[in-house]
């Protein structure tokens, strides 16, 4: 059965992750976000009582879902609706996630891995396990169905309502009854070892099997049909007791029959027959196993994402950060109000300064200005919001509207690059070139202090060429740069209408007294980034030495 909680039409995320997801995770600091989503915050009286250990399953699921971008507005809306349902009915998603987890744990205990790893040496034991697994599936499917019924009026999203319907269909009353009948019939086999009744009642599970057949090759029974199968509660009988022997004797006088308890071979051959018949019955149930064998895995994985969303919401509430459901807009739009850098908020456990931005009809955004002025944070806040939006999560802003960019790239200067064996510029250019190889139709490139590892003059030329080529090819570029001659050249050309630039220019705000507000304001690039003082102070002096 399909779960379809992440996409309306598929269960497997077989789509590409972000190219160079490693860079995105590193540049945007997403690890903190994954880990926050995996921790439950226990509140008490409006205060945080406890932050629980990270749930590795949640963390892993979150990471895997977040790094595969959605591609259309419909896909985003589909998830947002489910997120809304889950944030409103937290206990529902908690229950769904826990039930699927429990089912998987029980399965694990029944030896799921062991039976998957080695074939099976002990076929009887593995058959017993199969019966137990089947019983487990039936039990948990009933519970999950129950959970959905309990919340039936309170869930509105297409995804959850649809899943409830699919579950009723794939595991409807008829199928449920059929499976329970089968489980009852084979109970003698699966619960053989549970020797209840040794003491008081002395009743045990025994099979009643009726076969009809003809004579085949070499007199072997052939054309066998199973006419009846049931489990009966019968008295335990000792074949060697006087009473037992007397019963045998009389029974064989009355009917053409024999006891299977006598001799060495008969008991084991009868056991084999029991095995084959139960095996036959269970093999019929293969479609049920096929239908649900990966269901619980998929359900837990997909429910985990929404479970994680609940945790993230609690984080936002804890730090007083408002959130909204972002809207998809055209690729040249970028509008938001009071956008906070969520990762920084998680790291500093505080409510950071928000930014507001109103851009439309532009393919390029150039941010310049004071060092330590919040430029990089600003760029990252957009990156993080973009990733969250593109996986269906809410975003930490009053509102957020942007294009959808499945091809999202970050190109940040790396302060310390360990794998580097060629020069830094070489490495940067290499990264850039790989990005160019992977650019798609809807691409967004975040450049943070790119090409800083060479002289300003050279860096500016490279930046100009790259940015111009990219934007002309329809790629959206957001760049934070201190390459002022590059920024100014673009600004002047844009002013005079040269080269077809459609660019916006922001700058980190700096008050008269040099204080930084960490706000970005529309501003023409200035020739100084006010870091020169700093430079002179530290490096200039060193050079003079």
């Amino acid at each position, binding site marked *: 059965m399909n779960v379809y909680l992440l996409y309306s039409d598929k269960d497997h995320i077989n789509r590409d992750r972000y190219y160079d997801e490693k860079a995105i995770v590193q540049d945007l600091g997403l690890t903190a976000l994954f880990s926050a989503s995996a921790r439950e915050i226990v509140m008490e009286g409006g205060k945080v009582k406890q932050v629980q250990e990270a749930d590795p399953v949640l963390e892993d699921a979150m990471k895997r879902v977040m790094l595969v971008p959605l591609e259309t507005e419909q896909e985003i809306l589909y998830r947002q609706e489910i997120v809304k349902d889950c944030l409103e009915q937290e206990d529902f998603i908690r229950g769904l996630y826990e039930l699927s987890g429990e089912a998987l744990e029980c399965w694990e205990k029944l030896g799921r891995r062991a039976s998957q790893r080695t074939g099976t040496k002990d076929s009887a034991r593995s058959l017993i396990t199969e019966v137990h697994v089947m019983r487990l599936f039936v039990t948990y499917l009933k519970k999950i169905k129950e959970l959905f019924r309990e919340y039936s009026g309170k869930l509105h999203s297409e995804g959850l309502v649809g899943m409830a319907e699919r579950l009723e269909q794939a595991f409807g009353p008829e199928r449920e009854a059929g499976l329970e009948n089968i489980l009852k019939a084979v109970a003698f086999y699966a619960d053989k070892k549970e020797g209840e009744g040794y003491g008081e009642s002395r009743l045990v599970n025994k099979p009643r099997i*009726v*076969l009809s057949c*003809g*004579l085949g090759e070499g007199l*072997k029974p052939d054309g066998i*049909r199973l006419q009846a199968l049931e489990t*009966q509660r019968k008295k335990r009988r000792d074949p060697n007791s006087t009473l037992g022997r007397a019963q045998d004797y009389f029974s064989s006088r009355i009917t053409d029959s*024999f006891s299977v308890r006598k001799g060495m071979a008969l008991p084991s051959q009868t056991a084999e027959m029991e095995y*084959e018949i139960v095996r036959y019955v269970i093999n*019929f149930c293969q479609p049920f196993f096929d239908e649900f064998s990966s269901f619980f895995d998929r359900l837990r994985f997909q429910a985990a994402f929404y479970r994680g969303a609940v945790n993230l919401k609690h984080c936002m509430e804890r730090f007083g950060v408002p959130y909204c459901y972002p809207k998809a807009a055209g690729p040249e739009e970028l509008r938001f109000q009071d956008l906070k850098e969520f990762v920084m908020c998680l790291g500093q456990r505080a409510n950071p300064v928000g930014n507001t931005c109103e851009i439309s009809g532009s393919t390029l955004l150039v941010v310049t200005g004071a060092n330590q002025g919040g430029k990089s944070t600003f760029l990252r806040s957009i990156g993080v919001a973009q990733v969250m939006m593109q996986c269906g999560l809410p975003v930490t802003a009053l509102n957020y509207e942007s294009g959808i960019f499945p091809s999202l790239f970050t190109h940040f200067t790396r302060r310390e690059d360990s794998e580097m064996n060629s020069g830094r510029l070489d490495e940067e250019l290499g990264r850039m070139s790989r990005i160019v190889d992977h650019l798609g139709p809807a691409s967004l490139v975040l450049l943070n202090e790119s090409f800083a590892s060479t002289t300003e003059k050279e860096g500016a030329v490279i930046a100009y060429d790259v940015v111009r080529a990219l934007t002309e090819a329809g790629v959206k570029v957001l760049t934070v740069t201190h390459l002022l001659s590059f920024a100014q050249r673009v600004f002047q050309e844009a002013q005079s209408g040269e080269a077809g630039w459609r660019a916006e220019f922001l700058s980190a705000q700096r008050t008269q007294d040099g204080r930084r507000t960490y706000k970005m304001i529309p501003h023409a690039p200035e020739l100084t980034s006010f870091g020169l003082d700093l430079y002179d102070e530290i490096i200039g002096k060193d050079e003079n030495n």
Partner: protein
Amino acid sequence: MRDKNRENSHNWQVTEMENTTDLRFSTEFVSILDPEESPYRDEARPPFFWDLNLDRIVERIQALWQREVASFYYYLPANGACEDYRREVFGDVKNSGAYEGLCRFVERMEEHSRLRENKEKVHLDLQKSFLHVQEAFVYCQALAALAQVLEPLKLSSQGMRAFRETLCRYLDSPEFKGLQETARELISEIGRVRLTVTYENDRITVTPGETAGAYDTFLMQCFPGQNVRMHGPFSLSADLSELEQELLGLVRKQNPEIFENAERFCRSFPDYEKEVFLRFASEIQYYLSFYGFEQEMGQQGFCFAAPRVGEDVPMEAEGLYDLALACVRASQGLKVVSNDMFYGADERFFVLTGPNQGGKTTFARSLGQLVYFAKMGLDVPARKAGLGHFGGLLTHFSVEESVETGRGKLKEELVRLAPMMRDACAGAFVVINELFTTAANYDACIMGKRVLEHFLKSGCRGIYVTHLRELSKEGHGIVSLRAMLDENGRQSFRIMRCPAEESAGAAQQAGRHGLTYEQLRERLQ
């Protein structure tokens, strides 16, 4: 039921009396592979098998046929008459419409021998007797069905006609009729037995007839479309387990006549099979397997031809190709290059030169294969072909230096060559591929010429692939062939009548790699 049985046993008395007649069939028709009484031999692979890559072809044939037939391909006809005999039979297999019927026959006989093996494997006499009945029944069905297929056909080969005659006469004999009738009756009696086995409270009860409870129908309703077969549920071996024996003890008690009849059948017809039909069922697979292979290759666009063979037929072929290479290529969906060739009236030996990897060895192999398959009475890998009878097929391909023998390559070659030259029976077809490559040029030329002279004198035909241009000087029955390059200097794998030429120039070699000035300019544009 009782009355009918008595009637049966009455019939059997007659059959038992007549059962002693007519064992003469074996004197008329013996083998579909050989018109003469030839010993049924376990042949070793002929030495040329590896050189011509025939082992790969036979492997492919066997893989398609899925039964052991390889040894038939090692068994070469002793003379021209036997070659013709086979060719005619193969013609009938292909063209008379008998192919499908023969395949069915082989399948039935396979079932028959499977039952017989089963009979030998099981331990209980009771089972043996039932298997004997079932086995005899399949045997009768197989022969009767084959006769029905063959009777209306227009057969032209001596082999198939003789076989059909033998078969029909046998089927008309009272011996066979008695066998067939009694087996059929007994089988249908056995088929009618149904019983119900109830296992409950540690006892198993057997009652005659069918009980309907239909748990399996319930399962099928639960999971529609599931096709589950019950494994067992009793023992899986051919033998009866103790449990089954207990069951059958009760069945016997309930149906005593059937068991008696089966035992009587075994006494009446202990050895009913005729060797000649068993042998036919085995040997006919030689033709069937090849025809099956031929059709498979045909679907991939590789053609075969029935060669014209006779003493005065000139040796020639159109569209001749290396069948072993074709087997490999076919699996990759690729084609092979084919060539035309002929030997003029006085021409005895081709000397083939040309660039490396130019298709020389492939061409030599295809010639060898032509001779082999013609000799085997089968179709040849060509569009059209004709040739004479050859006394034998000799090949010598250079091999990697053998570490085990410790001999140098030259010595190795000579050691392998010596017996060929000594025994070179007159009129053999000889394929030689690159002799004496490690010897000095001067020596190699002289030795090569001597070898050629020798085979020419022995009245052989053949092909000699070499890098020595000196050997290709025409005259004395020698024709020079060359592997050609195309206009771009690449291998074309075409073989033409053409004098040998100087080694390929450097420019050509560069061209092959796309490295001439013009090519480079184009590539770097």
